[in-house]
């Protein structure tokens, strides 16, 4: 059984369709990428998978269960999410990590907080007691990953988790996330605008055009390094002309 399954999902925002009849299945331990530029509505699909946005009933399934039949607070624990901007909550790093369990009235033992911080390579002694407001961008993003892991999720939704970070921090976060996939079998659904990143970390890549699935293929197949980044990105967004550089932008008539 697939961990996440989407069946005929259509979604409109402000009267205009964002997703049209999208169906896909994501397997356990997979890194499933969706790449595309900002403004392509690529977050909407992700936000439906943990009910941050409401999908129509019978369109999104987690371990075979229609997520709209379960409480949102329960789905959010099983399907964690990391955002583009790492929003730190008031308090210490430890408070941040323990936030999810605390909202359910549970206290996360300090050993578990340290263990989670270790898992995201934040192993300086005393980091748990540090004020969360003092962290660098890369450290803060690590805390948001540890914070999501505290809920013991099966899936992590990653909404451009490295786009606010420098290249070194980006590579380090990628390593951490892939390490988590290998160590605890975490499934990653990853939205990115970087073709390079998709090549480095992705198992499969989703190609949507105007909200419709055009193709789902292995990252190697779809993002051939022989293709330039720009053309690969255009292709990943369903712009067929992207494959034929000479035709691009000629009579395509699509306003960007």
């Amino acid at each position, binding site marked *: 059984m697939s961990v996440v399954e989407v069946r005929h999902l259509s979604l409109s925002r402000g009267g205009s369709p964002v997703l049209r009849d999208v169906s896909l299945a994501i397997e356990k331990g997979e890194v499933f990428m969706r790449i595309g530029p900002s403004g392509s509505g690529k977050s909407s699909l992700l936000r439906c998978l943990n009910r941050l946005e409401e999908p129509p009933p019978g369109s999104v399934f987690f371990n075979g269960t229609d997520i709209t039949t379960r409480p949102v*607070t329960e789905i959010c624990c099983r399907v*964690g999410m990391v955002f583009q901007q790492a929003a730190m909550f008031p308090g210490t790093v430890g408070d941040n990590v323990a936030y999810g369990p605390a909202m359910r009235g549970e206290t996360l033992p300090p050993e578990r907080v340290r263990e989670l911080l270790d898992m995201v390579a934040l192993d300086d002694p005393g980091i748990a007691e540090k004020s969360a407001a003092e962290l660098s961008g890369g450290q803060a993003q690590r805390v948001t990953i540890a914070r999501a892991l505290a809920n013991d999720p099966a899936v992590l939704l990653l909404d451009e988790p490295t786009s606010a970070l420098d290249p070194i921090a980006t590579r380090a976060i990628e390593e951490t996330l892939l390490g988590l996939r290998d160590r605890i079998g975490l499934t990653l659904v990853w939205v990115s605008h970087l073709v390079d990143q998709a090549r480095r970390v992705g198992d499969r890549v989703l190609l949507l055009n105007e909200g419709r699935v055009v193709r789902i293929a292995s990252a190697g197949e779809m993002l051939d390094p022989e293709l330039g980044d720009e053309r690969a990105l255009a292709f990943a967004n369903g712009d067929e002309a992207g494959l034929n550089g000479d035709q691009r932008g000629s009579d395509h008539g699509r306003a960007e």
Partner: protein
Amino acid sequence: MDVLNELGDALANLNDLPRIGLALALVAIAALISRWQQADLETDLLTASVRGFVQLIAVGYLLELVFNQDSPLWTTVLLLVMIVIAARTSGRRGKQTPRATWIALASIGVGSVLTLAILVIAGVFDYVPDAIIPIGGMIIGNAMTTASQVMNRMSDDLLEGRNQIESMLALGATSQQASLIQFRRALRNAMIPHIDTTKTVGLIKLPGAMTGMILAGASPLEAVQLQLIVMYMLVGAVTFTGLIAAYLTYRAFFTGAHQLKPLRPLPDAG
């Protein structure tokens, strides 16, 4: 016919017009200064002065009528009209808040009525128009400011803190847990000015009710005692109204399934 007779009597009571005219001279001076400094406020000043005059004289007559009727029904009707006007005014201020007028109506209405009810039941004031209307006016006026402040502060903070709130929701927090910071901040923001006023009362300026009573010939001690009642009751009214407004505003921003409603188009909409 009674009503007409009373109106006639009331007209005869407009014997302070010369003094009002003299006070108006200050507005004329202000207009001259505005013209001299090219502040371009003469028309505004004129409109405001005329409007203020007509409004207050009309209210004066209305109050004369209601006071002379001395009927609980008319008193109640007037209070309700005041609440509706306050709710509409406040609702127009809270543009970003969904259903702002209804939130204002509910919070101002319940906050004011509750405060008045406690005062009347406790026997602090009788339910007679010459006590209830001015006291109600003060309560409703303050409740109105509070409702606007709470709605504005909270909707600004909820929109601004969207990222943090959604991060909390994504960790399994309920909408109430995720908006707790904004809820508390809005409530504190509305209550602090009243608490500060209560702390420094008399030291910085004499409050309105007291000033009015002293001008009307009451002894300072009498005035002070009434002012204390007014201050305490306003703290109560502001707290009730603020609490209800904050609760309803938070509810208006979330779905029943703990999702923050997309009010503005999200950055990646498309």
